[in-house]
């Protein structure tokens, strides 16, 4: 790949990095990353990956922009209210960096389309707010052998892990989704808007580290932070032999659509 003068200028701060360089920037420019959810986490992930020049960014989301989203979903602006989120996100990405090829899926991520969609991508970013889809992303990535970044935020807290085939998956840590409504989502319990930016930029950094091979990923680790104390903590984890999807004797070999929390179903209708 030959960069133009403009591209060399645009990506100069990456090219200057010893761990990235021209070679790393080429890897970024040739990469295809899927972002599931164009919301609080997906917004900063999409913007930073677009700025970084990720060659192809796929975004899947079936929702439209709501006024209550704008407190944290920084890829959407006031004029975008009622616009499909994937369209709003694509417009901003194109304005930020016309080099990026954006593929939008204005639909829900389900067991029906998950494997087919992720098959086209090198890395997947979980930017969803609900456990059924978090488990679906995990299972689909484990089954398809795709790396992904998990992210969750609530109130003043965030947590993230990176999965590569063979490392601890989300199900190693959390066996199965909590019953609907047992754990509140952001739409029920609230979230400090900037937390989405903090966690989303960690996920974007992990994605770029994966693509360039720079540094050590958050594999076999769970990073969590609390913004009230600004304490960050990394817990070491291990792949569980008994994990129902990535263990030695997996019981989950097909994708599952778990029931959504009741409030989410109501919202969709």
């Amino acid at each position, binding site marked *: 790949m030959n960069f133009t003068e403009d591209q060399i200028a645009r990506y100069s701060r990456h090219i200057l990095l010893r761990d990235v360089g021209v070679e790393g920037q080429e890897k970024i420019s040739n990469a295809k990353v899927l972002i*599931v*959810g*164009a*919301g*609080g*986490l*997906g917004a900063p992930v999409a913007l930073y990956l677009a700025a970084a020049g990720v060659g192809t960014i796929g975004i*899947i*989301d*079936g*929702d439209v922009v709501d006024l209550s989203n704008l407190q944290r*979903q920084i890829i959407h602006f006031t004029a975008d209210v009622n616009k499909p*989120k994937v369209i709003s996100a694509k417009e901003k990405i194109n304005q930020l960096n016309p080099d990026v090829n954006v593929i939008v899926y204005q639909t*829900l*991520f389900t067991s029906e389309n998950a494997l087919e969609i992720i098959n086209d991508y090198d890395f997947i970013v*979980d*930017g*969803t*707010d*609900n*456990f059924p*889809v*978090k488990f679906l992303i995990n299972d689909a990535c484990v089954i398809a052998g795709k790396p992904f970044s998990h*992210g*969750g*935020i*609530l109130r003043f*807290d*965030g*947590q993230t892990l990176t999965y590569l085939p063979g490392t601890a998956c989300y199900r*190693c*840590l*959390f*066996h199965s989704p*909590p*019953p609907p409504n*047992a*754990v*509140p*989502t*952001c*739409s029920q319990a609230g*979230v400090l808007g900037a*937390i*989405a930016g903090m*966690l989303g930029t960690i996920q974007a950094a992990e994605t770029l580290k994966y693509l360039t091979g720079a540094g050590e990923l958050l594999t076999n680790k*769970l990073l*969590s932070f609390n913004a009230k104390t600004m304490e960050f*903590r990394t*817990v*070491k*984890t*291990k792949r*569980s032999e*008994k994990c129902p999807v990535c263990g030695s004797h997996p019981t989950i070999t097909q994708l599952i659509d778990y029931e959504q929390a009741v409030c*989410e179903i109501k*919202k*969709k209708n």
Partner: protein
Amino acid sequence: MIKITVNGKTQDLENATTITQLIALNNITQPDMVSVQLNEEFISQEDYESIELKNGDEVDFLYFMGGGQPV
């Protein structure tokens, strides 16, 4: 008395304590909603009752966290 570490912080235990009792001591009201790691190994729920903590054990309670975007 034994000293253990719970989520990175030292905790003193007066008596012999199981994982189930430690969950109660730490005021975790929904034990189904946490994952427990003991010395970096995940513990199955059915073993909470039988595992007794030893001096120097490191316990991590991991919580479910949602967040992001409904899709």
